[in-house]
């Protein structure tokens, strides 16, 4: 009786079986990667009209975050500096730098500089900067090592599970208020004990309250 299957069918069958397993694994890995970083530009440098370096301004020059992000303590939005703020220094120093041409042009023509947003949330999420600052959450907790960024990139996914992680365990991330704007702050080894003390001191509401949906969605 003639063979129904060609000899190659054996190999094909084996390859298919292994292939399916490999394919599923590959899909899982890709999906994991994609989910974690790819679609939120995690760690990717954005091309900005001016290659602004937080590293230079924060670490080298020691300028405070609030010099430019003026409303971070009072408003939901931290604020992006108007061109005027840049020119308060750059009308005196680096006045001929070609890199700063867009800034000078903006100032002269009264046209805004259009920056690319790096840390971005969906429109149905209502994040508020001022309350986090007031409760002892530092800039770098969310924005990552901003003092080491020559070009700003997104250091955290800002996914809901990432937010919730902190809202569930605020003592793991809270820091003394005097270090909120420190770009070099490292949590101490006894963060857990310190954190629990600060949670009490700063009246941080219980996880049940701050993980409530209406905390961020409305």
């Amino acid at each position: 009786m003639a063979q129904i299957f060609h000899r190659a069918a054996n190999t094909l069958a084996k390859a298919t079986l292994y292939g399916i397993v490999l394919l599923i694994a590959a899909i899982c890995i890709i999906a994991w990667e994609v989910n974690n970083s790819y679609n939120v530009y995690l760690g990717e440098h954005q091309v900005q009209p001016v290659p602004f370096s937080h590293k230079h301004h924060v670490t080298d020059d020691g300028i405070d975050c609030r010099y430019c992000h003026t409303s971070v303590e009072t408003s939901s939005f931290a604020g992006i500096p108007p061109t005027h703020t840049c020119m308060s220094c750059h009308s005196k120093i680096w006045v001929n730098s070609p890199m700063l041409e867009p800034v000078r042009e903006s100032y002269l023509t009264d046209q805004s500089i259009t920056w690319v947003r790096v840390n971005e949330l969906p429109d149905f999420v209502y994040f508020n900067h001022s309350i986090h600052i007031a409760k002892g959450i530092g800039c770098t907790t969310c924005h990552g090592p901003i003092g080491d960024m020559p070009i700003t990139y997104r250091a955290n996914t800002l996914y809901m599970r990432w937010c919730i992680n902190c809202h569930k365990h605020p003592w793991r991330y809270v820091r003394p208020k005097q270090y909120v704007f420190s770009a070099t702050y490292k949590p101490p080894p006894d963060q857990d004990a310190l954190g629990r003390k600060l949670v009490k001191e700063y009246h941080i509401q219980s996880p049940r309250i701050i993980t409530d949906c209406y905390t961020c969605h409305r």
Partner: protein
Amino acid sequence: MSSKDNDNGRLDLVSIRSKLETDAGKRFWRSLEEVAETEEYKRFLNSEFPYGVEKSRSGMNRRDALKLMGASAALAGLTACTKMPVEKIVPYVNAPEEFVPGKPLFYASAMPWQGVGQGVLVWSFMGRPTKIEGNNDHPGSLGRANIFMQASVLDLYDPDRSQVLIHEGRVGSWSDFLVQVDELRAAHLRNQGAGLRFLTGTVTSPTLGDQLRDLLKQFPQAQWHQYEPLARDNTREGARLAFGEYVETIYKFDQADVIVSLDADFLFTHPAGVRYANDFANKRRVTGPDSKMNRLYAVEATPTITGVQADHRLRLRPSQVEIFARSLAGALGVKVQGLGEASLPNLPSDWLPALVRDLQNHRGSSVIVAGEPQPPAVHALAHAMNAALGNVGKTVVYIDSIEISPTNQTQSFRQLVSDMGSGKVQTLIILGHNPVYTAPADIPFAENLTKVQQRIYLGLYEDETSVLCNWHVPAAHYLESWGDARAYDGTVSTIQPLIAPLYDGKSAYELLTLFQGQPGRTGHTIVHDYWQSQQKQLSPQAFEVQWESWLEKGVIDGTAFQPKQVALRKDLDVTPASSGPQSSGLEIVFIPDPTIWDGSFTNNGWLQELPKPLTKLTWDNAVMVSPATAERLNREMKTVKTQGPGMGPGTGGPWYSPGPTESSKYEVVELSFQGRKVLGPLLVVPGQADDCVVLTLGYGRQRAGRIGTDRGFNAYSIRTAENAWFGSGLEVARTNQRYELVMTQHHFVIGQPSNPREGETVSAFHRDLVRVATLEEYRQNPDFAKDSPDMTTQAQSLYPPYDYSKGYQWGMSIDLNACIGCNACIIACQAENNIAVVGKDQVGRGRPMHWIRVDTYFRGNLDNPEIYHETVPCMQCENAPCEYVCPVGATVHSPEGINEMIYNRCVGTRYCSNNCPYKVRRFNFYLFSDWNTPSLFPLRNPRVTVRSRGVMEKCTYCIQRIRYHEIYAEEEGRKLKDGEVLTACQQTCPTQAIVFGNIRDENSQVAKLKAQSRKYGLLEELNTRPRTTYLAKLWNPNPEIKES
């Protein structure tokens, strides 16, 4: 409420009447169909899809739909592969002062309404006005607002506003216009202004008045005319008749214990309605059995917002109100000439003597208010009665007219039109108000307008008037312009712009300054310089400080007029103007529309979709008659053949399948009044006076915009100057046409038993949704509103209980005794929460999106029922039925007791809505939010998500406001104070019927209200434990009057 056919003929009003009588007046009902228990109504209540199943718009068949579903499920995963869209941030070059991105700013301004300044406080987010509140510092508002103030912000962003200057039907240029004005000015300077006319609405603005006076000085022969369709001519002439001069009457309802309204809707249509509603409700606020209430007697034709609140309401045709006023004046011993001897034949015998005794017992604390529709004689009589009762100086105060030049506007307009007809007018400058549309039918304004050589129209819209003018200048909205206006008591309210004119609009001030020969003066300069010239004693620097403080408060201090001593004329003669025999036919009555007013808000979608008080009619007007008159008309109406296209079917947009049900179409009748005819659908309104037909103005616009054009019928087309408010001799005829009217009265019926047993009535109002007593009954039994012990089940929930002993616990109390059903809360909620407008067809399918609704209930007989309003937002149940059925956890419970709705989780199963006994959840069946019209984007409140298709939404207790204030309190290390967070509905409510707060705090206002014995919850027997509760309604009837 309808006069429509059902299977076996017309709605049987006779049997409805007898049914209501056998119920001994104790039963609450919502509509005539419900009482009649028509087959159609039962079908409507019991069917799964009461509004019918819509055909798909695309005409796709089932097989294709399944294929697509499969494909979209498979492809759904792929969306995870797209990257988040990149957003841009565009900061300022130079940031303005005091400007913090992300934080709103508030500016005090004023909205001119009926010429009178209504104080507003405007939210501004990143430079765009999004929401209007009342101004606390303004005497006419006291922090409260009505529907027109709330909705005016939508007009600002209306994409149909005129955006360019139009010359002879084409786009013109401003420079050409300036040249034209220069030529006109030069010509009229030569001829002393002969033939130059200005037509404005009512002007109370001191600055505009100064400009007009200057113009009349420069052009001595020029004339200034004023005309508004709802001008208060009768009020003005009544004052002149009584006192010999134009004076303004201020009522002090906060001092009045007995109030008589003679056809006066002082809580709503009066220019001081917001303030009056507040004062009136304060005198009805009950905190315990010792509290006192005022007593309101209302005499009126159709139930108005004021009349419904009356402890005794007498239905009289407007012409009979005058006879009533004369009898009342006679009985009070008022001595004037020409009082007459006429009396009303069918007045209940105990009414008048009891009223007279009540008034005489309250000398100095009573007030008699005559309504604008009544002729001057009735106003004069009201003044005389108030004087006789010693009310003047106490509850009634007179001040100088707040207008720059009080005029009889109808006469002024008639004069203008007759001059136009005889060619005496060469140049006419029209400042708004669309006179072509609103002109009385017997004053041929439109016909004579073209006889004027130069016609210049300043208006917000390209409308009926603009097409007949040579020049149409787009007007600046009041939120875009500088100005001023006087409040009802004379206080000057400043108007300041929140945003630069979106379409280069000009204000009336800026237009007039061109004719004054001072081009180039901006609105700011004009208003600022005028007030500086009034404050010569101040140095320029000191004036700037003063000016800033005025702008901050929105009012100029100390400009309220002082009370004025006036004396009744000795020779006061109130002989009726026309003593001819009253013709026996029907009486026609015109009233301003309770949502779109005189037509100035016709293109406002929020107001069009707002259910009108009582009738719950949306998007249309109707020919309103009483049940008895409907019966008579059904018997007697003759059928006529109409010429022309008729009314059309009145169904929604072109892509929809035929309207909900064929039989819900209303009978169109032809009204003939003094030789003019108009067609309109007939609607039966319980509580209206017999033998009169009530029409609302503002509909039937030819050119209003995409929202307002061709809706309803134009009542102006049969309204004459002589019979501006009412007149007799109306004939009604049947046309055999049908028209679809859409009412929300049957929507969201609460408490319908799901499977009515045999013989059980479909009416569910044995459930006591409205609880009511008289003040006397309440004093004897303060607990009348409590549920009987066997009703309130203390049953435990199967679910674990929540811990409500910590943090804030939000709750709301709605005082039915204060609520007047003015709808302001609905529009405030719509503006605050980005609620979409759905259109007539979708409303007809039961899909309006309002988060808060005002239910109307009737009790008692068909002809003169008691009428109740009940405001229903989400109850925020502690045991919320909606939460248990959501398969995706999109509606969950908060530790603060709020029943949360999370849009981004919702997949649209609508189980929650099904399981909600209060029917307060709203579903986005289509993409109702407008995501395509750019001019509407800046309107949205940035603190609230704009919902998309397929998402459920509902009242959130304005969670964005709670969080906003909570965050700032937390930052300051304190807890929220009582009254710090106001929900949008609470903040605007003119009568403070809605109070919201932390119920765990015993000293909070809401906790105190909830501790009152009048407190009850809706459907508490279901063990839902609602957080929103009510305070029962109380009446304060005169024990001497026995009436049903």
